[in-house]
Structures are given as structure tokens and as C-alpha cells.
């Protein structure tokens, strides 16, 4: 009895496998099989990539605090335009403006102010090269946001006290993507320049931090 059942199962198995193998072999042509394994040199058709919507530019505005040496910590507002060359590298241009406070000396001595009201208006622009150093995800509560920590370095101009000053700047920031075309930024920058407002030439470092919103287009 037992051997009968064993024979029955064996026959069923053999029949089943040989049949399915045979039908499989019939269905696949040998050439087709080779094609699947070896990808031949395909002549590709040129494509106009301009037809695909691209989002390499980034434009936005920011607001924050600029601590300007000797002239207090002041509100700063600005606009930013960036172009993403690759996933790693980008260039960005910034234009910002602020209003300087009185120096401690001006306040304490009670003498005539060093700068007129107009001369306290500060504006700057710079062009920077940026690198996306730490791409990844950031979790806020239950939501995950794509993010990128980046560093920038560049140069530009600062206009205040009726004079232009060559200014280096470097810093870093965090770009948090709300979706794939809206991003929130938090940046810290250091603007380094030299001026001779107090007689001798003095190199100053002005730290700025700001939050911003940008759109990719």
C-alpha cells in the first residue's frame, strides 16, 4: 500500500516537471533567451531633454540677524538665487540689506554720531560656490523630510558708510525639503572684510544667521 502511494506521487511529480519544462522550452526561443542575458549595442535615439521639465534653479528670500562688529546685531533681509550644477555642486547669489545701530562709543560719549542715518544703511551681495555635504533625511515628529546640509564659500561686496568693501564669506546651512520644489533653509554665514572707519584699518568678522524659503523652478 505504502509503495503504491510512493509510486503514485513519483509518477505525478515526474510527469508534471517534464511537461512544464517542455512547454517552457517551446515558449522561449534561444535567441530571445540570449537577448535577455546579453544586452546588444543598441543604437539610441537622440532625445531633446528640454522637453522634460527641469528644476535646477532655486529662488527665495530670507530674514535673520546680522551681527555687525561695533554696530550691534541687526535685522537682515535678503533674496537668494541658486543654480544646481550637479547633485553635489551649486552656485548661489545673495543680496541682503540691514540697518546698523549706534556703536557703544556713540551712545556713551554723547558726542556727534560717527555715521549719518543714510550711512547706516548696509547692503551686500555675494556669489558663492556651494557643496551639498550631508544629503539625507530629517525626522520631525512622524514626518520624514529630505534634507541636505551644505557648505558655501564665496566673495562679494558690502556697501555701508558710503563705501564699498570687498567681502569674503563662508558658512553652512540646512536645506529642508517640504516637497520636491519647496525648501526651508537655515543658514549661518561669516562675512569677513576690512574697514578704516575708526582710523586704522581693521579686519572685522560679521556673523549672520537667517531662515529662508526657496522654490525650485
Amino acid at each position, binding site marked *: 500500500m505504502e509503495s503504491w502511494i510512493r509510486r503514485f506521487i513519483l509518477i*505525478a511529480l515526474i510527469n*508534471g516537471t517534464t511537461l512544464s519544462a517542455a512547454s517552457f522550452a517551446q515558449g522561449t526561443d534561444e535567441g530571445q533567451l540570449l537577448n535577455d542575458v546579453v544586452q546588444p549595442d543598441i543604437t539610441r535615439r537622440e532625445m531633446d531633454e528640454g522637453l522634460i*521639465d527641469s528644476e*535646477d534653479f532655486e529662488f527665495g528670500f530670507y530674514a535673520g540677524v546680522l551681527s555687525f562688529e561695533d554696530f550691534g546685531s541687526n535685522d537682515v533681509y535678503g533674496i537668494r538665487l541658486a543654480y544646481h550644477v550637479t547633485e553635489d555642486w551649486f552656485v548661489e547669489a545673495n543680496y541682503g540689506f540691514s540697518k546698523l545701530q549706534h556703536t557703544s562709543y556713540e551712545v556713551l560719549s554723547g558726542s556727534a554720531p560717527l555715521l549719518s542715518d543714510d550711512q547706516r544703511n548696509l547692503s551686500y551681495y555675494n556669489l558663492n560656490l556651494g557643496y551639498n555635504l550631508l544629503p539625507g533625511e530629517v525626522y520631525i515628529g512622524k514626518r520624514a523630510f529630505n534634507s541636505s546640509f551644505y557648505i558655501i564659500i564665496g566673495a562679494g561686496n558690502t556697501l555701508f558708510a558710503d563705501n564699498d568693501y570687498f567681502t569674503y564669506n563662508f558658512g553652512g546651512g540646512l536645506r529642508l525639503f517640504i516637497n520636491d520644489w519647496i525648501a526651508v533653509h537655515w543658514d549661518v554665514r561669516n562675512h569677513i572684510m576690512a574697514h578704516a572707519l575708526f582710523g586704522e584699518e581693521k579686519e572685522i568678522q560679521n556673523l549672520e544667521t537667517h531662515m529662508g524659503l526657496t522654490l525650485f523652478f
Partner: protein
Amino acid sequence: MSFRLTSFGTGLLVLLMCFGINAKAEPLPAHWQNSEQILTVTAPYIDLRLFAGRGYPIFHIIEKGEKLYLLKRHNEWFKVETTNGKVGWVNRREMNNTKNEQDIALDFSNNGWRDKHKNRFEIGLTAGSLEGAIAFSPFITYHLTANISTELAYTQAYGNFSTLKIGAISLTHQPFPKWRVSPYFRLGSGIIQTQPNTILVQSEDREDPILTVGGGIMLNVSHRLMLRMEYDSHTIMTTRDVNEEVSEWKAGFGVLF
């Protein structure tokens, strides 16, 4: 007995094959309207990432024979949607493992720096020395032909006694645009503004026309990035009897788009 079993096996197989065919003929999502955006994967699989960059995690793969819908591009990454509604980003290299609805493989790859002619605009920044003073110039270029381009530049130089500002338009000529390291020549004209530093001296701003003859070499790093080094000789047409000649050395980069 064994005959009956075989026929049962065949029946099962046919049934399975029917299911297979059914799976392939699955209707495409309704919003996949433009058939040019529909591509089929030809490689065993391609990776789908959360965002446009190799640093973002792979969360899904699209298998061979599956269809995808091309949505947009973010530099070297393409945003695609799968038939089951998964949305992710695929690298340019992997996009070559697809074919379109006419069974034609499209060329997604780029030829490195040789593709630079596809981008006509260039913006960039050079920095250097204008008669010993630090100078920097943001510029924008439009490539009229492979050889000839026109450029608008704003230069600012910080001297000890004055700040110079130059706004100039120029024509450049590249005799060998197909070389990776390519020389160029420049002819330009503009206006130079001299602003004495007010702390030291009180005097009027001056504005004079300026003529520029120069040249340099550019290195095509990629189809979007260009490095350049340049020497310019400026002639300032002053209101005095003699013209002033100043020279400028600079180096910088340009981004093509």
C-alpha cells in the same frame, strides 16, 4: 491514472499562464496621458530613490518589463512614477535601461564636456588683481555661435584710495571651440567709475569710457562647468591729456545653462 494527472498539470499551467498574461495587460493609470513620457524598464531592475541624489535611500525597485512615467528632472536625476503609484528618483545612467512605447531606447546619457554647446547661457565669477587691487567680476555670457559669444560683466576693484567699478560689454572669439582647453580673445568697451574712499579724501566721482583688449584660456570641466584664466589690458579714456592704461589678471568659473 497518470494521463489524468498530466492533463490536470497542463490545465494548471494554462491557468497560470493566463494569470501571467493578465498581469502584463494591466491598465495604465488614468493620468498617464502623454505616451512619450511612458517608458519600460529593460534592465533586470532599476533603483528608485527618495530624492535626487545618491545620498538619499533606495526605497523601491522597478523590475524588468514594468512601466514608469517620466515626470521631471532635477540635474542628473529623473522623477518617475510607477504603475502602482510609487514616486521616486532615478539616476541618468539608469534611465538608459529603458525603452519608449515604440520600443526605441532613448539616449539619456550626456557626452561630458562635449555637450557644452547645448547650453547657450553662462553665468560666473572671476576674481583677480587690477593694478594690484583686489577685483572681482560677476558676468553673464550668451554664446552666439560655437566661436563667438557676447558677455556683460560688472567689475569692482578695491584700491587703497578708491573703488573702481567697470560695466562692460564685450565680444569673445574662440578659434578652437572643440578643444577641451580652449584659448579665447576679447574685445570690449564700457564705462569705468572711480569713487575715492570718502574717509581719506573728499573728491568727486569720475566716470570715463574704457576699452579692453584681452585673452585667456578656458577649461571645459563638464558640460555645465567652465574654468577660465584671463589677462586684460584696459585703456581708460580720461578727460586729461593722456589716457591711462591698466592691466588685469583674473581667474574664475562659469556655469552653463
